């Protein structure tokens, strides 16, 4: 399992390749990549991502450990960036490896749902004229309910 909270960009190809090479006894790998989206018709200039050093790593490790507990996973990777990102830049990725694809897909969705609203990151969108904190959505909280047990 690898958790990385970093300011620097990551290479999707290198990370995916290394993950696939190291995962043993598996039949399926799922990767998900989050990209800075310009939801405001070309006006977004920068997305600033703030986080809580210390708690972030702890929360991501807890989320990844829970995924490993729930699904029979060969390996888990979570990379999440912070700092100033431009539209089109990759913010984060998760990868899961399992013997079968259902577990790999489900675990990846679980990781995404949890890290969206349980990992201490906050996004701020900056345009030429204004800056706005991205608000959490009710759907994000609802998405967690389907994993309740």
């Amino acid at each position, binding site marked *: 399992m690898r958790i990385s909270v970093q300011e620097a960009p990551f290479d999707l190809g290198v990370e995916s390749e290394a993950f696939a090479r190291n995962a043993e006894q598996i039949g399926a790998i799922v990767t998900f990549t989050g990209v800075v989206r310009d939801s405001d018709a070309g006006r977004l200039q920068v997305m600033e991502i703030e986080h809580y050093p210390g708690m972030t790593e702890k929360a991501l490790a807890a989320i990844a450990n829970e995924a490993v507990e729930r699904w029979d996973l060969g390996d888990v990777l979570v990379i999440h960036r912070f700092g100033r990102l431009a539209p089109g830049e990759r913010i984060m990725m998760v990868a899961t490896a399992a013997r079968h694809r259902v577990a790999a897909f489900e675990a990846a969705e679980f990781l995404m749902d949890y890290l*969206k609203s349980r990992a201490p*990151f906050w996004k701020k969108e900056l345009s030429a004229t204004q800056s706005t904190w*991205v608000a959490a959505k009710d759907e994000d909280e609802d998405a967690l309910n389907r994993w309740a047990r």
Partner: protein
Amino acid sequence: MDILYFAWVRERIGLPRETVKTSAETVMDLVTELRGREQRYEAAFADLSALRVALDQDLSDFDAPLAGVREVAFFPPMTGG
């Protein structure tokens, strides 16, 4: 006790962190104490439903006790991913 603020809570209060001496027994007591200080704290804590709290880097609740806690953090709902 160290108090940390993130995102718009940090911006409203104008500080990322501060150290306070307090005898507050719960998070709620601490919030009441901070709100009584200055308008900027009142503005940050006006709507608790828009805030989350972590105690020693674990998500917690406003009615949680503060005994033994070293670090309290206040922030809006998280928006990772």
